[in-house]
């Protein structure tokens, strides 16, 4: 006897064929059989968020005469109507044609992806989760701490993908997030904060067992609390040009904003201009632009334990690992299949050979766009954090973003961090509060002169990367070593 899902799958396949018969060159569908989330937040010991959700529905794309149409519905009894709507939208789009979209040669794929998970968080009793969070919360309590919070977030998605090239992909995604933070006012009344996010070295698993591992999360409560008390007692970071050593907790943001987003092909082609901005990178830069010093090796990587690892992207392309920047030279960009033909035609050469497997959508009701996967920096051979500090005459070690702001083409940035440790003559001396640093993207990355070894490398999770119209929140990860940059403007001058 056929199940409801079988009927839906049959309907999708029939409609994909119908789209080809109607003149489409390509069509695809993503059916979210399940998209579950759970969020728990303890704020000052009170369970302020105790929330579960599930989303179910289908999103359909149709490519007609080089123009895209998309439609989505939560009504799985109306799959054919959804295809019709997508086709109608595509036909409307042909009224103002641009470079005709083309998916290139067919790339049929079949496969399944399952993330490494030992203990599905949705099978863990709520009482056990709350006991874990309460225990961590207790560890954050202190007379100097004014406010504290601990959060856990879980996602489980079961997504089926089909396209008109006979691709059939069945994949699950499961992610676990955790944050703890303490806040207190300093002598000037300014709120200071110290935060810790669930992180890993790239290995391991993504289930509940990760969150409950004290080394990865809960065991850091005492350090976090202690560092806040040091920040409160500290002086503000004096303004000045000095070396900046970024721990992975801040380095991930630097990579995210000034490499990841800047290398998304849709931005480079101008498709994000009206919203989150474009990119300083141009097609002619690919293969030529010195983006950073020769110490810089950035890749769109596959990391076992990361929300940026998903097996197949939302065009059914198997995820692959490749360099974006190799020895400081820009060699590739983040892309889907959709924009390759346009990019290469405009570049007048094959600037981007194949999909960067970056077509991703955050929900069944959003269409895939070019987005970051795991944008990682390869570990270097400059040793440990201590080695890099020992080699630094005048600098600061910075960790965890407080605020981030970047120019619309991602050339100039201004970041504030939670904590700075002063480095003088090869020694960590004291803590400073209110650190900020700012700079210009290429100049900054070209000042990179120390990259820590694999022991300094860790994967920071990003559960909330926003992009697109309508906007989409996406999850990913950044594997980052300790990095040193020379002569950076730090602090704020009046």
């Amino acid at each position: 006897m056929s199940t409801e899902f079988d009927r839906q799958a049959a309907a999708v396949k029939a409609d994909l064929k119908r789209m080809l018969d109607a003149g489409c060159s390509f069509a695809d569908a993503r059916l979210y059989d399940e998209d579950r989330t759970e969020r728990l937040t303890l704020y000052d010991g009170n369970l302020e968020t105790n929330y579960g959700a599930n989303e179910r529905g289908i999103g359909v794309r149709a490519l007609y005469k080089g123009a895209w149409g998309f439609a989505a519905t939560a009504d799985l009894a109306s799959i054919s109507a959804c295809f019709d709507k997508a086709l109608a939208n595509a036909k409307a789009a042909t009224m103002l044609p641009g470079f005709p979209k083309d998916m290139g040669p067919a790339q049929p794929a079949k496969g399944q992806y399952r993330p490494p998970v030992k203990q599905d968080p949705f099978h863990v009793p709520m009482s056990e989760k709350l006991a874990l969070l309460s225990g961590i919360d207790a560890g954050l309590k202190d007379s100097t701490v004014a406010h504290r919070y601990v959060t856990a977030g879980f996602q489980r998605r079961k997504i089926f993908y089909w396209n008109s090239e006979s691709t059939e992909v069945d994949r699950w995604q499961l992610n676990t997030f955790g944050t703890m933070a303490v806040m207190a006012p300093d002598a000037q009344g300014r709120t200071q904060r110290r935060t810790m996010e669930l992180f890993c070295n790239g290995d391991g698993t993504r289930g509940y067992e990760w969150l409950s591992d004290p080394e990865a999360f809960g065991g850091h409560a005492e350090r976090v609390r202690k560092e806040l008390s040091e920040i409160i007692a500290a002086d503000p970071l004096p303004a000045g040009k000095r070396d900046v050593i970024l721990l992975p907790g801040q380095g991930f943001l630097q990579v995210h904003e000034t490499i990841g987003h800047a290398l998304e092909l849709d931005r480079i082609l101008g498709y994000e201009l009206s919203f989150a901005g474009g990119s300083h990178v141009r097609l002619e830069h690919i293969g030529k632009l010195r983006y950073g010093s020769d110490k810089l090796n950035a890749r769109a990587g596959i990391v076992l334990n990361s929300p940026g690892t998903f097996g197949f992207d939302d065009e059914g392309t198997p995820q692959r690992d490749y360099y974006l920047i190799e020895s400081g030279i820009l060699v590739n960009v983040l892309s889907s299949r959709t924009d390759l033909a346009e990019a290469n035609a405009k570049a007048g050469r094959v600037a981007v050979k194949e999909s960067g497997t970056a077509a991703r959508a955050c929900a069944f009701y959003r269409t895939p766009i070019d987005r970051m996967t795991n944008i990682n920096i390869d570990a270097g051979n400059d040793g440990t954090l201590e080695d890099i500090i020992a080699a630094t005459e005048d600098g600061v070690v910075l960790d965890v973003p407080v605020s981030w702001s970047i120019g619309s083409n991602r050339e100039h940035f201004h970041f504030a961090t939670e904590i700075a440790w002063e480095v003088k003559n090869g020694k960590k001396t004291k803590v400073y509060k209110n650190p900020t640093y700012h700079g210009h993207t290429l100049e900054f990355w070209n000042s990179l002169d120390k990259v820590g070894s694999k022991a300094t490398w860790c994967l920071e999770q990003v559960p909330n990367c926003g992009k697109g119209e309508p906007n989409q929140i996406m999850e990913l990860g950044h594997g980052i070593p300790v990095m040193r940059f020379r002569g950076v403007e730090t602090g704020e001058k009046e």
Partner: protein
Amino acid sequence: MLEKRIRDLLLAARADARKQGLEAEFNFHRERSSLIRLGNSSVALSTSEELSRLDVTVQQGRKSGAYSMTSDITSPTQLAEALKVAATNCQAALAKDYDPIFGVVEEAVDDSTGFDPALEALSPVAKTELCKKVVDAVKPMGKYDFSGSWSSGSTEMYYISTANDNEAYRRLTDGSFIMVLKEQDKKWELQAERTQKRAGEFSADDVIAEFKAMLPVYEKNPGYKTHVDRQRVMFGPDAVANLLGLTIWGAFVGRMWEEKRAFSSNLKPGDRLFPESVTITDDPTNPNVFGMPFDFKGSRRRPRILCDKGILKTILYDSGTAAKYKRQPTASDLGNDDFCLSPGTAPAGIDAGRKLAQDALYVPQLHYVHMPDPTKGMFTCSSRFNARLIKNGEFVAPLLSSRVTDTIPSVFGGITAISSRTIPWNVSGTYDRRSPTAMSIPEYIICDGVRISDVADSF
């Protein structure tokens, strides 16, 4: 009123909750929306979404739990399941150390005054035709490319709880049009933006005229790289809306104020916060905003003065913060408030503003705004579309990307002029469910001594 089929299901779910002795709140949300996205002078994407969502919250004493589903909400079984999950979450919850406020629909609301069927049904074809007219008229004038988006649609919100039999319903339509013209070699970008409450509120000719009026300054002059210093800045509409948003967050949000994280935390109602020229309200009756008539705890929303001629009057309390700090909630349990910055006395119109400003930077939009220090109201952002240098009251050159790093009290403290004309500005977030939000803002403010902290070599 909500479609009978759905309403009956939700009322039955409420009856079911009562039968089980549960205190439950039901919040139904439905959107029918569409968007066209332009890129490289063509329609890069045309989308439409039809989504229904239901949030159920169950409260038992000091415990609460919630569940949300996005699916085709047509079966009593699904609703029963949602109620069951919320109740289970509630049962497993930890008790709070205060008494949370349970939602009560204070008075029945059935508001479709903001609904325009023509805007709900606005087709991708109609949108494309308007955009095509602009592209066809302006593109041949230079090496220009157009991008942008036009989203529109309807939103329904329905809220009931087991506390009484009242129902709160509202249905409205909105649209947001953004079009960007980019010069392909020189890389400057111009933007035209419109907030829409009804179909046919603006025309292609109107947008063409706006671009044409700006183009000469950009075509005839190289980019101007300003200096790092305190300068006079004339902020345009999007920037004013951004500054108002930062002000609300950094000065009037109850949680921030109570926890001493707001820049107003050392003040109490009655104290001076800003100069006399600044009046801020949360006013659902203002014709420029979308006017949310109730919040999602069932409170009726009425005009509320937050800052009266510079004097701090009211702090905003959502129900959670109000319960925690034993304050009165201010009907602020929503994502779509109706904030208004009152007009001033300066002449209406951007051109009148630049004449008044004389020598200044015109910054109509702020990009990537962040607040490193809310306790001082310190924010940072960079200039973007349409930014120009004003010299002797004239726009004379496009402005290279310039960073502002200053505090809200300093910027508002330096206000020398506020336009006497206010306009609607769509600030709807699109991260989550469609929740139309607009601010009523003066079309410009002029401020002295705004700190420019960095300048890029490009736009």
